[in-house]
């Protein structure tokens, strides 16, 4: 399956079932993401959005079904998870920066320690990534000295430093206050425009509408409805989608 070509889906999810004990969180979810596409997963809380996205870089395992990234089966027990995770970057709701390292060290750590790249080269790249997320001058700040929005942008830069092919964003603005949400969204938008494949779990409908190529609405472990933003937001078919949208918009 290693003979993946860019015209095939970069991420392919087929009939995925996942349960935590008795509780079935995902009940047969399928979708494809093409290279360079931006997709948003929306839905009420507890509908399995975060679980779904965490299955893609094998932070959660699945009970049945298949997930492939660049043609490689993610839940193949023989797969080298570390190789997979070099290709898939992830940003979390709680930023999860390493508090004992400066912003620059946070970004440099994985390329230096995991990819074994030379330090000077990585430092240069880390600085340009910090500039890209508009945090020039914060190289030597510790996470505790940065605002939530700044921390989240460092976290994005940290993921990008691994040069991933796919970026996963798990409710990255949910812990931020309204003013700082925008700065993070602008960063993600820049990324999307650069052609990065992005999968976002989000509650920012305006953002989803503007940036996403495709929107998936999940409820109780299944994809209820999906479509390009224009049709999805204006001509939702399913009553559950319409109810959700009426509450949130």
């Amino acid at each position, binding site marked *: 399956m290693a003979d993946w070509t860019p015209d095939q889906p970069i991420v392919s999810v087929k009939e995925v079932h996942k349960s935590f004990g008795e509780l079935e969180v995902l009940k047969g979810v399928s979708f494809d993401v093409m290279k360079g596409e931006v997709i948003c997963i929306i839905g009420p809380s507890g509908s399995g959005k975060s679980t779904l996205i965490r299955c893609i870089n094998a*932070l959660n395992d699945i009970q049945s079904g298949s997930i492939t990234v660049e043609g490689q089966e993610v839940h193949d027990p023989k797969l080298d998870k*570390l190789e997979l995770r070099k290709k898939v970057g992830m940003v979390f709701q709680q930023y999860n920066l*390493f508090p004992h390292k400066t912003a620059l060290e946070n970004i440099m750590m994985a390329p230096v320690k995991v990819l074994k790249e030379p330090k000077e080269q990585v430092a240069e790249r880390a600085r340009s990534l910090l500039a890209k997320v508009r945090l020039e001058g914060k190289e030597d700040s510790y996470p505790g000295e940065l605002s939530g929005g700044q921390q989240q942008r460092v976290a994005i830069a940290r993921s990008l430093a691994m040069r991933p092919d796919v970026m996963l964003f798990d409710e990255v603005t949910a812990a931020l206050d309204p003013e700082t949400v925008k700065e993070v969204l602008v960063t993600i938008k820049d990324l999307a425009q650069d052609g990065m494949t992005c999968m976002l779990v989000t509650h920012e409908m305006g953002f989803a509408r503007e940036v996403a190529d495709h929107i998936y609405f999940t409820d109780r472990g299944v994809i209820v409805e999906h479509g390009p933003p224009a049709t999805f937001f204006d001509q939702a078919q399913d009553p559950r989608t319409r109810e959700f949208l009426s509450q949130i918009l």
Partner: protein
Amino acid sequence: MSRRAIPSLDGAATTDLPVLKPFDPSGRTAHDPLLISRFLARLDWRHFVVFALVLLLWPMVAYAQSRYSYGDAFEALVRWIPFVVLDGFTFNIIISFFSMAIGTLAGVILGLMQISPLALVRLPAVFVTQLFRNSPWLVLLFIVLLAFPFEIVIGDLILPFPAWMKAVIGLSLPIMANISEVVRGAVQSVPSGQWEAAESLAFSRRQTLFEIILPQCFKRMIPPWMNWYAILTMATPLCSLLGVEEMINLSRQAIEAEDNHPELLVPFYGFTLLLFFAYCYPIARWTISLERRYAVKL
């Protein structure tokens, strides 16, 4: 020694806000791992004065009629102090250093084994930790004393294995088990998001532990580690039962040399108590102030 006030220990701290604590009928969650250090650190000069008064006045009254006066007893103490301190107390401290060093080294390894994902590594480590953590120290000391030979013969080489070395081993066992718990607790106190972030950046488990998790909990381990050092130091007189020539044993020898007058007991053992207190008190205060400083910062 300088004694700077520690907020919330010596008087109220500005952060002491009224907090509704969770209902806990068993009272177990309220367990304080630094209990002894906190108790020691809370003592101030008034406790000291009361203690000294008891020490001085009680025997004076009790033995007022005796021919061997209390003054004679104190004179004897002063004469013996160099011997008791330089030969005896120094030995207690040496034993505490070696036990702590061995116990810490073994405890860190055991603690890391306790958090291994492999049950084959984890379960024995948990068992050993719980076994030595919950055994009486004196029992461990005697087991080591009796189980090990007095010398080790390797071919022509004969290595003596004196009682004090056995005492070091015996005392390092409970320290090992408790440091193991300190390490496990500190690692588990790091939020799971740190593990996940490291995993998603393709760090291996070993790299995550050594590059990301342990550097973060190093500071958090220092106060409980110091607390265990104070407890260990206060436990070194147990070695006197093994015949180790430490302070308690030397004090007894000194008393015997002074014809076993009962008046000698309180000055000699009271002096021992004061010396241990003077050694452990600053450690306890330092422990509590470090604990306070590291408590909030993550």
